[in-house]
């Protein structure tokens, strides 16, 4: 994809170029504005916000809203801060992402390299799972979780997210492995490698980009999920998103906007981190199927 010359086919004049960059800068600023508002207001005392200075930089800088949001803020009825709920989310998201990604990779492997009768129909059905609206499964899912004895637990939430995630992760890996040369699998078969050895030694080492895509996708979706968290997790098993909502909705006392802003940033931080660390691979992975080499 490297282009040897920086010359573009149609020469863009300097004026047009400056104009283009200006417009882009404007858009960028516009998109960054909410983040700016959140950041500045999370480090000022409440009085400065209620005084009407939403857009201005803080006169007195303070980290108190952050520590409060994390440690002592009132969430529902208890003043625990967001910390325990953050760990709830971690305990939910890590296994859910790991399991759905691994199962998706295995499904993709079987659906492309161990074809069987009706495999395309099966894949179609799994794809269908991607398009079922969340609301539709709430009640049946609640019944199933109840029967399994997982109602209100983090394990239950993991199960829900894994079930919902498999559709997408299978789609990703199936399409990626469809372009993976079948001759390699055949060569490995002749070499004597078994089902899992082929997967582990031949396919997985070449699956870096798509794994990153899948992990980012699952992580953001599961971390940001509110509906399942609110529906299936009881009190102290609730994930971060639900806790944030409870923090903001707390009716006692004055609304502490600075604490809310700090809490919201805390809730968004992990996904942000994942993007910053793995974002490059995300773009690369998305392109992997279409552009070769």
């Amino acid at each position: 994809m490297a282009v040897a010359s920086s010359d573009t086919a149609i020469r863009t004049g300097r004026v047009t170029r400056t104009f283009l960059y200006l417009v882009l800068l404007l858009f960028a600023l516009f998109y960054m504005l909410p983040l700016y508002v959140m950041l500045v207001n999370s480090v000022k005392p409440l009085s400065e916000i209620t005084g009407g200075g939403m857009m201005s930089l803080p006169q007195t800088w303070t980290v108190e809203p952050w520590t409060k949001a994390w440690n002592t803020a009132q969430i529902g009825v208890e003043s625990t801060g967001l910390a325990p709920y953050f760990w709830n989310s971690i305990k939910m998201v890590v296994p859910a992402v790991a399991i759905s990604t691994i199962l998706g990779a295995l499904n993709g492997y079987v659906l492309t390299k161990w074809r069987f009768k009706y495999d395309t129909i099966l894949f179609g059905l799994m794809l269908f799972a991607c398009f079922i609206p969340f609301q539709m499964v709430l009640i049946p899912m609640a019944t199933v979780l109840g029967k399994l004895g997982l109602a209100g637990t983090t394990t239950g939430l993991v199960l829900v997210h894994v079930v919902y995630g498999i559709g997408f992760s299978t789609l990703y890996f199936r399409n990626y492995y469809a372009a993976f040369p079948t001759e390699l699998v055949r060569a490995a078969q002749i070499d004597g490698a078994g089902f899992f050895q082929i997967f582990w030694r031949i396919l997985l080492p070449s699956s870096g980009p798509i794994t990153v895509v899948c992990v980012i996708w699952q992580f953001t979706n599961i971390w940001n999920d509110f509906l399942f968290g609110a529906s299936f997790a009881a009190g102290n098993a609730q994930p971060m998103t639900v806790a944030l909502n409870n923090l903001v909705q707390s009716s006692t006392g004055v609304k502490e906007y600075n604490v809310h802003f700090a809490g919201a940033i805390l809730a968004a931080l992990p996904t942000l981190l994942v993007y910053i660390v793995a974002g490059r691979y995300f773009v690369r992975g998305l392109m992997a199927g279409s552009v070769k080499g």
Partner: protein
Amino acid sequence: MGFLDIDNATKSYGAVEVLHKVDISVEEGEFLVLVGPSGCGKSTLLNMIAGLEEITSGEIRIKDAVMNGVHPSKRNIAMVFQSYALYPNMSVGQNITFGLEMHGTPKDDREKALADVSKLLQIEQLLDRKPGQLSGGQRQRVAMGRALVRNPDVFLFDEPLSNLDAKLRVDMRTEIKKLHQKLGTTIVYVTHDQIEALTLSTRIAVMNGGYVQQLGTPKEIYDNPANLFVATFMGSPSMNLLDVKVRANGNAIFADTTNGAGEKVSLTFTNPSETLKSYDGTTITLGIRPEAITDPEGADHRSTHVEKVENTVTVTEPAGSDTFVTTTFGGKDCIARMRADTEAKAGQRVPFAINMEKAVAFDPKSEARIG
């Protein structure tokens, strides 16, 4: 009972039969080439020997053991794929020894086998590289190394040279032949290149439409093709096919046609068979290879029967070592292979020497050889 027996093997995908009762017996140390046009079922047959495709009916045996249903890794075969199929994440050394590792060979033995094979193929300096850092020819060697290291009973090659450029292809072809002569292994080799088939093989199976058209040594296939398909598929430029009328006169049988000027030409058959006599008065297809039509000075002196015919040259194509001269018989183009310095020019009338010993007759309807 051969070393590798393919016994009435059939392959169907659903209702479609793509291989019809293939029957081939390969002796130990033979180099069998499966050749034929695209889609004729060569790869399918090879994959059936490898165990990568199921056998619909019939039997495949290696060293008298029935292979139907046996896992590819337990057949003691090795395969070289068209794309080489090198594992991209492993180094060359790991690629070569992966099969041994999977079969539980101890590390010391693996190292030793790797050293031997890489010396044989002269790839010692490449062992730490990844396949992506190799040239086409080097990948080809590594793929062969991976096959050789297991010391299998049968080597299977599926168009191993078709991804190489013309020059390298000829070099690797010679190398494969040398390797076969040195190691004396049994090889089944798929190609659609008839030159590769003729140069490499000890025997050739010419396939078309899922049928084995003819099985024989390169010389048999080339000199005595069983039918029109084999005759035209093998050889380049391909065999000239002329429409001639059979005329019996006592014991002699003539093939009557006309030259470019419309004059009558009668060619006499060498040792005509009784069957040919029964075609008296009908039109048949006469096949003569370009190298059997030459200038009189270049005619094969050992041949007992060369006919001289004058004809008009339509085109000459100098090809370095030879000049291909086109003329017409019975209105059909006919290519002669003359010496490089022949003086024949387009439009001239020159003598052609036809080696009738090499002429073969075909029934135009059944396309089978008239024997």
